[in-house]
């Protein structure tokens, strides 16, 4: 009776510890393989194309509308206090410090992260990863390392695009629509943003890149090892869902932690 109780309580706990250990080893092996020669330029460039270039449109669109909403909401909040001139600063700082890195990471997770998990999951289910092992090709190096490097390059660049387009979106709604002086808006943007704000945003982007690439690749790589014992298409679907949910949760947790240390 007591043994069974301990087993019931301990089993999920030990499986969580095991899974965390596997994730850590996977992450460290992937990072280490980035530095192992020969460099995988072509695979990394392909992944930059997939994670970065192909996400650009959705990032620009999200950035523009986020900035426009911030411009509108900011205007109506600030105008009550007669501070609408500070709209440029409010929009720029909100985007560069918080919304840019977070929303960019979440959008990339939705577009590229889920696709990564599904692709790697199918590779696992159709024995392509086993085939790599039989060919003496390190599957972590072949699959994960180019993706994590590509994510580290793409996330900050896309975040920068998001921020710039978002500030422009705030300008559209704040200045062109609501009538705030255009020079004042841009002056406030330039005056308020410090180099440390930009660095803070980039630090977040780098951390989110590691989080998203690791979780999405890991979930796909071990798609056959899920709690529900599902394999095949169901296993890939479970892996994809859990990769997206976990990535988003960890993005928000890390966002809080980094903000806490940066401010």
């Amino acid at each position, binding site marked *: 009776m007591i043994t069974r109780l301990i087993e019931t309580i301990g089993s999920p706990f030990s499986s969580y510890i095991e899974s965390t250990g596997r994730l850590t080893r996977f992450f460290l092996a992937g990072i280490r393989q980035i530095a192992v020669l020969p460099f995988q330029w072509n695979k990394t460039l392909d992944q930059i194309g997939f994670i970065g270039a192909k996400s650009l449109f959705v990032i620009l669109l999200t950035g523009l509308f986020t900035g426009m909403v911030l411009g509108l909401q900011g205007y109506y909040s600030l105008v009550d206090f007669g501070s609408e001139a500070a709209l440029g600063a409010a929009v720029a700082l909100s985007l560069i410090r918080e919304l840019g890195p977070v929303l960019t990471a979440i959008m990339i997770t939705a577009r590229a992260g889920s696709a990564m998990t599904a*692709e790697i999951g*199918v*590779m696992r289910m*159709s*024995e*392509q990863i*086993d*085939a790599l*092992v*039989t*060919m*003496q*090709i390190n599957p972590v190096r*072949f699959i994960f390392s180019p993706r994590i490097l590509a994510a580290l390059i793409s996330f900050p660049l896309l975040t920068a695009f998001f921020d710039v387009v978002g500030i422009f979106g705030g300008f559209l709604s704040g200045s062109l629509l609501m009538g705030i002086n255009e020079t004042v808006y841009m002056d406030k943007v330039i005056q308020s943003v410090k180099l440390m704000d930009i660095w803070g945003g980039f630090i977040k982007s780098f951390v989110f890149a590691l989080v998203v690439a690791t979780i999405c690749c890991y979930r796909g790589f071990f798609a056959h090892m899920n709690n529900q014992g599902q394999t095949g298409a169901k296993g890939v679907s479970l892996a994809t869902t859990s990769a997206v949910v976990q990535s988003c949760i960890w993005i928000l947790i890390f966002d809080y932690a980094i903000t806490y240390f940066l401010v």
Partner: protein
Amino acid sequence: MIQPFIEFKNVYKRFGNLEVLKGVNLSIDKGTVTVVIGKSGSGKSVLLKHIVGLVQEDEGDVLIQGKSLNRLSSKQARQFKKNMSYMFQDNALFDFLTAFENIALPLTETTRMTVAQIRKKVHDRMARLSIQGIDHKYPSELSGGMRKRVALARALVTDPELILFDEPTTGLDPIRKNDVHHLIREFQKQFGFTAVIVSHDIPDIFDLAQQIALLDEGKIVFKGTRQEIMACEHDTACAFIRGREMLYDRSKT
């Protein structure tokens, strides 16, 4: 007595509650072709995966030239695996690579051959398998038979000493199937590799085999030559190759 190249010694393997291998004993000599037959789901692929290290035995031992696979140094294990190829049942071709890139992959990733050398070798294998002109096609653009031959070309391109074939002719028409058998025989004669073939192509596959092993209920219940199995002196083996389920079941009671 000559030491076997590969030896299964009382190997047990269980997946959850399902016991797949229940004390397998099998010796495979260097340079020979061994065909493993058995009912679907009897654990033939699991047996092959023990050799390549994709599956670890729960009990017993798999010996490579007398040394336990688990006790080989990492250098010895690497060397052994470098000289081995595995042709998967469902081909395991990479969807995002073209036919040429799939075949060339073990060479591009694990050797220092030049691009020209790789191209020459891959095209040679493609020519021998009659799959020229599909260099730029992706696996999804190829027929089942073509994909099978691309997988076979990938297995042969490294000139391995040991090739494990997991149902190499499934899904092929009789002409292509005989072509593949012919190619395995020709390549085996030419390069002298050791082959372990899991197959249901009975009796055609027997023409290739120096040794035939029947895996049944987790054990090797018959080992012998083509002549011995075709002579039908072993009840279970005889019933199996004739495809008579009732006789097959009765032979075990």
